[in-house]
């Protein structure tokens, strides 16, 4: 039974890239285009790992992380932030919200898979 990964990113290119890499590694991928959709997707699918962008319309990544953590079913689900940003303040903010890891865009396929596997046990 392969794992399901929810990817939340407003960039179609990024979503497709994640889809290609993750599907290629045998994961199921559920996609969402922004934070609001991302949280809605939690009702339809049960992701094992959530990968979210920070800068998105409607609801940003911090909102996603907080929203996910408020849902009792996803209190312990790993959330990885995928962002071009890398400032310590932003990371700290994501961590405070409940993020599990931080990957800087652009990412290498191997690095991403390594991190995903690392957090998804």
């Amino acid at each position, binding site marked *: 039974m392969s794992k399901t990964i929810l990817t939340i990113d407003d960039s179609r*290119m990024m979503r497709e890239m994640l889809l*290609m890499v993750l599907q290629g590694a045998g994961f*199921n991928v559920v996609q969402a285009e922004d934070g609001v959709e991302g949280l809605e997707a939690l009702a339809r699918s049960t992701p094992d790992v959530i990968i979210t962008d920070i800068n998105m319309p409607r609801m940003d990544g911090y909102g996603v992380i907080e929203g996910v953590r408020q849902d009792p079913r996803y209190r312990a689900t790993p959330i990885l932030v995928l962002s*071009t940003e890398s400032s310590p303040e932003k990371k700290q903010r994501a961590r405070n919200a409940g*993020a*599990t890891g931080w990957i800087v865009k652009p990412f290498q396929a191997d690095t991403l898979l390594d991190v995903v596997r690392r957090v998804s046990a």
Partner: protein
Amino acid sequence: MDPMDAIKQTYFQECDELLASLEEGLLSLEAGEADSDTINAVFRAVHSVKGGAGAFGFQAMVGFAHVFETTLDAMRSGKLDPDPEVVKLMLRAADVLADHVAAAKGEGTVDEARGHAMADELAALVAPEGGAPRTSATPASPAHDEDGGDEWGFKPLKFGDDEPAAASAGWRLVMRPTKAMYAKGHDALLFLRELSRLGPTATTLDTSWLPNLEGLDPEESYCTWTVELPAETPEVAIRDIFDFVGDDCPIELTLSGANVVEPPAATPAAPIDIDALLNSVRTPTAEREALEGGAEKPAAAATPAADKGASKNVPAPAGAGATIRVDLERVDRMIDLVGELVINQAMLQQRVMESGAARSSTIAMGLDELEQLTREIQDSVMAIRAQPVKSVFQRMPRLVREAAGATGKQVRLVMEGEGTEVDKTVIERLSDPITHMLRNAIDHGLESTEERVASGKQEEGTVRLAALHRSGRIVIEVSDDGKGINRPKVREIAVKKGLIAPDASLTDEEIDNLIFLPGFSTATTISNLSGRGVGMDVVKRSIQALGGRITISSIPGKGSTFTLSLPLTLAVLDGMVVSVGEQTLVAPLTTIIETLRPKPEEVRRLGPRGAVLAVRGSHVPLIDIGVALGQRSEPIDPTQGVVLLVESEVGGRAALVADEIQGQRQVVIKSLEANFQRVEGVAAATILGDGRVALILDVDAVVEKMFSDRRDAAPLAKAS
């Protein structure tokens, strides 16, 4: 296609959309509609372009986008006001960014000097305290640190080289997970596993803090682990593992001198099992399962909801107003097929009627329904390809900015009707004429700032670009509030160039139309803008080739308006089917004003071959279609045939004579050039219900030919 290439294509498409929304956002900021949503959207656009650029290694673009983004970030956080000067600069920066995207596509080059200057200007906005602008051209390197191991993004702590590195020594790591760590989806087991990847580890679990069952908070963290690692393990690698978790899992890392490395198998098995059992009571679900199942068993496999097979390969969830992207070729193919279907349906209907089936028969009624459905399918398919003209319009602000810059004039562009929809095939061909007309309006239409002030006008000239639907056609208007067409000068030039006779008497409208004559240019010096070798005559020809027309209206001192009208689609046409001799021809309905059967007293002979028709007090030239197309040498008697009164672009009204009218119907346009060759007087062809090919008449060409034939005979030129 290579998947990466496909993604790159997606990226470029996305870039186009992002650049469009960037420009749109900046324009609304320029218009003073500065709300935080707009600023955020603008920021995100640049941010996303940068993100993708990094992924594909477009370093120059990343560098520029980064500086741009930094400035926008300052605006977003309120440190920089979006005042007009700043927004103007950003609009130009958006143009540079667009150049970068184009260069990445391989469609152009970036003016590096301009890019650097722009980057410096942007950087200066956020470093206003007089400090040197930030190094702008150097690409930001948000990605990896030199050691390449930092996928978590944190800078690894570096220890000095004077660190003792005894071969026999080993690392001793104490990790004390906190409750907060588990709350963020971390799992102590995973850290242990990561550590074991670095080399042989010896792990000890300290459960001394574990309270009795009744005092146990299942979510609290009570366990600490001590892991011993070989000394040759790089410290950075160990610290990296705990990079992002930070204070949620404090670690103590010491390099001890006396260490006995034990293989993992030597880890005492029995205590771990008991502790794991205890753990299962106190840790959150995911970790418990992981511990129970051992390291290799997927943690969430036991989570019931994960078993729902429905989540496999779920595509992007459909949001409100869901859209899909379809390859244009598929749509075109479908349009072709539907065209064939329409023809086929018409043929079938004709055959059935010929076979003598009664109108009320079930076959005939079924066919009527089929006709209805076919028509609906056709309309729906055409609607798929219909697009708002926005995609063309949104390129124009940049053009206007550049044209304004090149001429030193102040220009405001007003756009209306961007949502007007028209077939994709038409949209693609709108860009060039609009570009040229706008350039023309700025270059020739608007006065210089000094002239405007002198004549009491606003310093800033206004150019208006509007799109609207009018009687089944799309109309594009380009108007300016400049000086209008200088008629005496136009006339003078036309005489000088021998385009008209010096004593020709022309109406204002005819003089205005002179500028469409080949080889006409009013600019005394070839300016930077309009002197690109394309005259208004070329614009006019290209529009006529699309079945369109262009007209001018001009008021001296007030400005000019160019009106361009085009069919909504190039795929189907409503036409009047007529017989001319043996041939069946189709005349586009849009050109026909009325059809009539002339009375003998209305036809007046004019010269040996010519004739005119009196229609409600005015006289229009009679043109025999058969003669014009070379099918017969002698015109038929107009009173024996029918007359199509047409409005042509070239010479006003004309009366086309055909033998008889067969009816009115929608026909599918088949290109004659693509299937045969270009024929003068014929715009295209179609296939009728009986399977015969019918030619579609190019009314303007037929009328123009008549005028040019007569012009050869008489020296008085008619402005065409």
